[in-house]
């Protein structure tokens, strides 16, 4: 079952931010980004 009821935290500017999310950092991309991308 997909539960999207993620609690929010209030930021100091009044915005509500979902307190949980998904990180997209890939170490391989960080180490060799240009080399990899230039291959294509």
């Amino acid at each position, binding site marked *: 079952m997909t539960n999207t009821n993620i609690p929010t*935290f209030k*930021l100091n*500017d009044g915005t509500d*931010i979902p307190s*949980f999310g998904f*990180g997209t950092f890939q170490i391989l991309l*960080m180490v060799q980004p240009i080399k990899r991308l230039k291959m294509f």
Partner: protein
Amino acid sequence: MRLGYRHIDTATAYFNEQEVGRAIKDSGIDRQQIWVTSKMWLQDYAYEDAKKAIDTSLNKLGLDYMDLYLLHQPYGEVDEAWKALEEAKAAGKIRSIGVSNMTPKIWNQWVPKFASMPSVNQVEYNPYFQQKELRQILMAAHVTLEAWAPLGQGNKSLFEETLLKNLATKYQKDIGQIILRFEHQEGVIVFPKSVHESRIQSNKDIFDFELTSDEMDAIRNLDQNGKGMHDPDAAGVAEMLLNAFDVHAND
């Protein structure tokens, strides 16, 4: 997105803003229901470059606003880039603005010069590296801490802690869920990364149990009171990052 994630953390330096934008579009989910964070890389901190970098991120993401935009690294023309962020916020291009990798020393060096207070500081944080000094500073300024490496990037010894194993058994959760739940109860924003669907699913399943205050204290004691994997205060970090790659090489 299919598994219910609605908050995505990306960055210019991850070279994937276009893919993130495509995933958002393909999901068919209302833009207002999704939180998108991206980050400016330090090569763009000079004022005019910073203004351009914000538009470049928006174009790559295919969005007309970002929910949160951060200065990814606290070196160079930080004050000029911050001004560009403040103006983009006023112009409606960004809803909230913040910084990243600011240690107490770096925070005290830059933030007093800013016209407005950052909303978040995204730093390395997990049970082994709880940033106690920084948290005091941020709490006093009503700034929210966002954790990078909330799972210690999968650190084996962290995942073998007896305390965490016992709590996992008690709550019928896995170690990752115990760690993320602890961080959530500490008021820290988390966005664990995984390429495995089963982990993407389980990491998010932390909102149906609560650690007791004794258990919270016990996990607080796992803090190693040291440096993390990355030390932003170390000599040469700014140069190392600046010379690592050109984020616009493929633009």
